[in-house]
């Protein structure tokens, strides 16, 4: 199969996926920060009868507090954290809960503003940590691919694929945030780290095959070798991502509500990570090898220059 000649289609596809994400991401508050990062209101509620915490969660979602964190403190008492609730909205919520869950009454034991659980600095810290890790990966791959020509390209390509995957996931959540009010929380951060780990892992497997084939067939050009390597490792790529998708789908379908965001990020991440190893990482190697960018640059420069001559 010829994957390499279709590289521009891969790039176009990725561009089309990432572009709307970026458009949604750029305006302030593009990515909706959840209460872990913003803080909000906390209410301690005591119902006059035992209430199931899953029911309470559903009612809160109905009320529009999709991000609410519910912790039971016994059968009838709950500690709930939500976005910042104005007094009237809190009253409306209490009335709703009273009507739906506990007709005999609900007592509000406390109602306060709470500070963020995760400091803004933690998010930046995570960002810097990932950046440093990317440098580490880059250097290691440079070293690991020292037996083939231009070893530094592999690390660069892997990092580009990693960036691509991160942008797809973040972009999709920016879109979901704008359209469905999906918020990012601590779970999102953790899942993103996991996706980054998977992305690198998957890219390396393909690159390893390329490394092996280059040494095996020193006279073939990179495009042929890359095509061969992708075809050879396709079975493995599909099987590995399928096994992960099985698990994630099982969790999404039958698991609890509270880790949905986490699972969606992983699910998208696994698909994108598998795709990007073939569609981005490998293609970046090809683009670099055949000087696509230089050609493109020359074309752009020449077009306006030649245009007047033609007329």
């Amino acid at each position, binding site marked *: 199969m010829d994957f390499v000649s279709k590289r521009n289609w891969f790039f176009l596809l990725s561009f089309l996926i990432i572009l709307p994400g970026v458009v949604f991401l750029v305006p302030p508050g593009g990515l909706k920060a959840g209460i872990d990062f913003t803080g909000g209101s906390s209410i301690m509620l005591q119902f006059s009868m035992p209430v199931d*915490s899953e029911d309470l969660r559903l009612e809160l979602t109905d009320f529009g507090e999709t991000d609410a964190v519910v912790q039971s403190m016994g059968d009838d008492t709950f500690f709930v954290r939500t976005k910042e609730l104005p007094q009237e909205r809190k009253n409306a919520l209490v009335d709703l809960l009273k009507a739906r869950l506990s007709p005999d009454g609900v007592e509000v034991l406390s109602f306060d503003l709470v500070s963020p659980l995760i400091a803004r600095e*933690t998010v930046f810290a995570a960002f810097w940590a990932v950046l440093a*890790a990317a440098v580490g990966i880059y250097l290691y791959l440079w070293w690991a691919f020292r037996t083939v020509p231009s070893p530094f390209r592999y690390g660069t390509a892997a990092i580009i694929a990693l960036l691509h995957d991160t942008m797809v996931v973040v972009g999709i959540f920016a879109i979901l945030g704008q359209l469905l009010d999906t918020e990012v929380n601590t779970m999102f951060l953790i899942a993103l780290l996991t996706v980054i780990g998977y992305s690198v892992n998957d890219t390396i497997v393909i690159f390893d095959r390329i490394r092996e084939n280059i040494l095996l067939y020193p006279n073939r050009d990179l495009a042929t070798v890359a095509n061969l390597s992708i075809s050879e490792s396709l079975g493995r790529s599909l099987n590995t991502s399928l096994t992960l998708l099985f698990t994630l789908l099982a969790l999404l379908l039958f698991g609890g509500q509270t880790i949905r965001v986490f699972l969606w990020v992983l699910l998208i991440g696994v698909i994108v990570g598998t795709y990007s190893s073939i569609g981005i990482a490998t293609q970046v190697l090809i683009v670099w090898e055949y000087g696509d960018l230089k050609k493109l640059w020359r074309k752009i420069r020449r077009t306006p220059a030649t245009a007047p001559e033609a007329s």
Partner: protein
Amino acid sequence: MRRHIRTLVVIAVLTATAVLTLAFQTIKLGNFERGGDTILGLTLGLDLQGGIDLRYKAALKDPNTGESIPPTKDQMTALLKTIERRVDSGGLGRPNIQILGEDRLLVQLPGVSDPERAKSIIGETARLEWKHRTFNVDRDLAGISGDNVLSVDVVDLQPPTTSTIELPGVTDTAAATSTATSTPATAASTPSVLEEPPTELPGMLIEFTEEAAVEFVEVVERLAESIRLAPGATALYPGYLSIGVEGETSTPLRVPYFELGIFAEIGQIVPLGGDPNIQRVEGTNSFTVSLAGAVGGGAIADMAAAEERFGGSPVLTFREELGKVDEDVGLTGDDLARAYAGQRSGTGLPIINVEFNSEGTRKFAELTSRIAGTPDVLAIFLDDEELLAPGVSQAIRGGAAFIEGRDFTFERVRDISLLLESGRLPVPIELIRERDVDAILGADSLARSVAAGLVGLGLVLLFMVVYYRAPGVVAAVALVIYASLVLAVFKLFPVTLELSGVAAAILSIGMAVDANILIFERMKEELRAGRTLLSSINIGFNRAWPAIRDSNVSTLITCAILFWFADTLDASIVQGFAFTLAIGVSLSMFSAITVSRTLLRILAATRLSRRLGLFVPAGAGDLPKQQPQLGAV
């Protein structure tokens, strides 16, 4: 083959250990204690397991008026940070701490089995003070001199003139330790023993002027205070009233508040109780001073001697000898940057490291340079309770010091370090509410997720077996072994498992599965190329190895960098993720390389190896004709 059997035994032993580790809820081997009543006895974070919910309120008071004042936002943030660090170093797991409203703090701790310890580690109001302690300070009593004394009479104090003032906690020890001397009090308190009370108890009756009496009362109170063992203190430094006669050269009489004895075994001074040596005669400005209770060979036992020394209304001189003076030098918890337990390099003995901030460094340097070379010591108080009183060998100007002690244990230095740290609470707090609380992700929701996860994992194993056949079975066994090893390591460390850890575990299981798939795909290629089973296994492994190595090593590098960065930047979620992922990935390499390979090789040596079809994925009809040597066996 022999070698494989040996590896198999190692794997079996490791697996059995892991399974046993998980099978017992709690493990106890001497000091080593792990497990609890959680699932498989794993240590779970607050998001996966319930815990304790503590609410604190800032109790900031104006030092002058005693009125409560609201804390500032910065103070609350600093408070939050301090408690976070304290909970962390106390090994209580990663807490959830949020500021509630303006002056309250929400602290949730995961699965704390000992809430009292948790509360003591968080600490409440704590004021840390470092003072300069000087011993045996002699001081003039300006307001009390011969001029203020109206009359001096030598009297017999037997029977006691006034009622005894009971000092709680003192008489008991006195009764227990008064082996040397028998006192009127011990005799009186044990009426069954008909001991003859001393016939004479020589004393003085001194009448002061109104003002002098007021000051003398203060002196007596100080004397009384000095023989009370302060909370936290280990030794008594009694004060004395020394009474002399003007113009006389003989040693003045030194009178402590109570008669004192020396507890010979530990060389400590203990008060013997009984009647106080100095008492006020109710409603007057007169005081009785027992001459029999004086120390240092100066005690006067009979009336005749008393008359000889103090008879005839002499002009008396008074001085006060303070056992110890703790001078406030303004060095407090605010000046301390950090305190932590450590080991002295070289000797390895437990020590407490302290570091001061710039202001503290200056004060500490001044304090230590004054103390160094004198018998004086540093006295460290937490909420007026004596914590430690170390000596100082030299002036410390660098702002960092360590404290060592003969009786220090690693546990003690850790606790004291925590207490020193607690003195740095920027705002005193008080506990207002305490409750048990459910996991953040909801116990019910999590139970369903665990079940779903198991179903998913089951599907993966099923897929492996159906698609890869015999090697798939091997992979399934290897994965189960892998899972039990990972969980056992988590339990033994113990790793506090949070959602971030579970995410890392999912990723590492994914990588373990991937490693197996990589190997089997390569094996399949080799089999198709017409190689024998055993050489296909060997070559398959060798071909797959660089990919497994590079992806795992790069993951390990990522973990190390994430861990280090997160540690420096204080992002504990990222740290937890990196740590669990590192454990998972290391074990996954072991699982793929050692467990899968050994099991496959052993399988290849059995009769099953004749059926090559078992080793090739389903639908692989393009297998070449079986090799003659295989058919000939």
